[in-house]
């Protein structure tokens, strides 16, 4: 029950941040990242999330939907398999100096780099 209450709080927190605490500025990522993402077909950021992936329009195209679904599927599957996510392993686990958590974090980065450098060029033009 406390988990669900926490999640509810997180949703509220996001709502408060967007309605009352937002500067209205798009995310200020590095110029190089903007350039790299441009080569994959992504416009420079106008908000916190790319429309190319998260707009209602794109989320319901076949390709767009599959990207969101598979992304979510792998996060859920992977975190249960590894017994934790970034907060469980990268932060809590590493704070307790647990080797298994370090291995998990190595995995997180291996997967993230694989996706970013090998798979993105194949799915985004």
């Amino acid at each position, binding site marked *: 029950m406390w988990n669900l209450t926490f999640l509810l709080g997180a949703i509220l927190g996001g709502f408060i941040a967007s309605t009352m605490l937002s500067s209205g500025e798009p995310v200020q990522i590095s110029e190089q990242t903007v350039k790299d993402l441009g080569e994959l077909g992504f416009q420079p950021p106008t908000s916190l999330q790319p429309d190319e992936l998260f707009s209602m329009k794109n989320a319901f195209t076949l390709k767009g939907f599959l990207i969101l679904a598979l992304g979510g599927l792998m996060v859920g599957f992977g975190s249960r398999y*590894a017994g934790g996510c970034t907060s469980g392993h990268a932060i809590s686990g590493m704070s307790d100096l647990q080797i298994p958590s370090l291995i998990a974090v190595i995995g997180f980065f291996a997967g993230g*780099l694989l996706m970013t450098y090998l798979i993105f060029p194949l799915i985004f033009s």
Partner: protein
Amino acid sequence: MKLLKFLLVGMIFGIVMSKSEAMSWYRIQEMFRFQAFHMYGIIGTAVTLGVLGVLLIKKYSIRDFDGNPILFSPKEKSVWRYLLGGTIFGLGWALSGSCPGPMVVNIGYGFYTLTIVFFFAIVGTYLYGIVKDKLPH
């Protein structure tokens, strides 16, 4: 209302995730491309604080709010489940730009299509339950 404190902590989490932009797909990309300090700064300060906190808790046997001892249990020693599970997680993390917590923060923020990501993350946990006996651990 015992649950109120969890709601409050959740709200702080949601606000911090939003203001720090850790829930932004762009920031995750920036991180995996090693093109800024930003995400490393967030994770680094969290771990530094965490290490200090754990040390203090252990050294002074600090108890929780209900007076119970705070226990740290070592994680089961193995390699494959962390390496393979972690890699699959990482693939999804880069693709969706979010981990489980930020997914719901995004929904609250107004990026409602993250509901698709969140729904399938739950499906993913069930899928693991079905196939786990066939996976190396």
